């Protein structure tokens, strides 16, 4: 029976054209634009990994946050609560469905970039990159779920996601080296999962297929914490008691 839910969540995610535009089309165009300007293989590799990471971030965080908000505001979860379907099953299936599409999109972006810029890579690097993208997508989708539970409306989602995403991107080595930046930038950047994800994606090429255990653990910790927090903070309804009282008085 979960396959019906999984398929339905895949369909609704694929029909979300706005998020698909920001997660697939825009990153590919941006990657080609930057890649043509910086004509060095080392820079192009940084661009491919950076764009793949940013796309993962947008798909994971904003994508699921808006999808949950729309479903919640339509009252779908109220009706879901009245069925025997367990909440945790719904959360897991939804995260898995979005992760499948997110992994497919980001793998395509990475592969298109590597092939277009004629960057060399081994099968092992491709496999490790694929696994890292799975981890990254799970991590940011989990954070997106928490964001959806915190936000009250669409504008709130935009504000909260920008507040989290902008420092993550600017304090990371996604598009430039942080070696010349003040030390606090690098310290704060490392507190976010995004910098660890970028490092995993780039280091797998530069250090000949090795993966740093610390960065891996940080990402896994973020996944565990975000899934736990999203299940604890999950709201069935957008209406608070106060809103209900107001409508009763009207």
């Amino acid at each position, binding site marked *: *029976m979960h396959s019906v839910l999984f398929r*339905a969540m895949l*369909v609704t995610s694929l029909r979300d054209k706005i998020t698909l535009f920001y997660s697939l089309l825009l990153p590919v165009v941006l990657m080609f634009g930057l890649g043509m300007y910086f004509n060095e293989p080392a820079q192009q590799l940084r661009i491919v990994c950076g764009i793949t990471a940013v796309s993962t971030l947008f798909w994971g965080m904003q994508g699921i946050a808006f999808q949950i908000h729309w479903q919640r505001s339509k009252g779908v979860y*109220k*009706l879901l609560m009245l069925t025997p*379907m367990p909440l945790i099953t719904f959360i897991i299936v939804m995260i898995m469905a979005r992760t499948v599409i997110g992994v497919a999109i980001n793998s395509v972006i990475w592969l298109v970039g590597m092939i277009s810029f004629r960057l060399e890579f081994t099968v092992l690097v491709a496999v490790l990159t694929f696994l890292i993208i799975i981890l990254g997508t799970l991590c940011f989708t989990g954070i997106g779920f928490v964001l959806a539970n915190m936000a009250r409306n669409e504008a709130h989602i935009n504000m909260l996601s920008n507040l989290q995403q902008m420092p993550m991107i600017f304090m990371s080595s996604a598009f430039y080296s942080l070696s010349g930046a003040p030390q606090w930038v690098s310290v704060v950047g490392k507190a976010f999962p995004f910098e660890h994800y970028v490092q995993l994606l780039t280091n797998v090429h530069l250090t000949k297929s090795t993966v740093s255990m610390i960065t891996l653990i940080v990402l896994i910790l973020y996944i565990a914490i975000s899934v736990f927090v999203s299940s604890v903070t999950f709201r069935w309804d957008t209406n608070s008691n106060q809103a209900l009282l107001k409508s009763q008085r009207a």
Partner: protein
Amino acid sequence: MYIEAKKLMKQYGSRTIVKDVDVTIEPEEILAIIGPNGSGKSTMLDMLIGLRKPDSGTIQYWDQSFKGKIGVQLQSVPFFPGLSALENLILFASFYKKKLSKKEAFHCLTICGIAEVAGTEAGKLSGGQQKRLAIAVALIHDPELIFLDEPTAALDPRIRLDIHQLILDLHKQQKTIVFTSHDMDEVFQLATRVLLIAEGKLIAEGQPKQLCEEYGVASLTELYIMLTNKEESLHA
């Protein structure tokens, strides 16, 4: 007895929405819950279906796994955005562990009179079509007990008649139906028992005809106005 609720009480802030209400739902009846806007009907319905917990009082169900045996049409019409009417129906059936083929789902939409919009995105259906899809969702798992919150509100007379017929057909199939409505003619025609609620309290209960005789009024509308006016003047 399907549901027996005793001394139900619900408060939001300092305002008491439902006060010491006793409700029973008997098998194979059509129970109408009526009352002015803001009288606590929907809150009481929400407590009976398990959507909200009462602050005090008890609710006993005939079956511990009642969730899979009740069908609910809420006042709002909730559907998964991006999915068609048919896809929504199949998805909701899966929540009840029921594997529904496209043919079966289509048949259910036909019964509810919206087969022609099966492929249309649920959110893009008209108000009447959405209401009928919500009723189809409530019936998809063949529930024993069906709750319909204002099933005919804001619908044109033809669709109202279709829904009245659907309720009567379900009753013939030994289903128990609980509905809320502001249309007293509809209540008189369909309900086998009526609960009149005002200011969160149960102020009258009985068969529609019997209630009219008891209070010496010609219609349910007259009774409704008489009792709710009385209740309001008591609280003024």
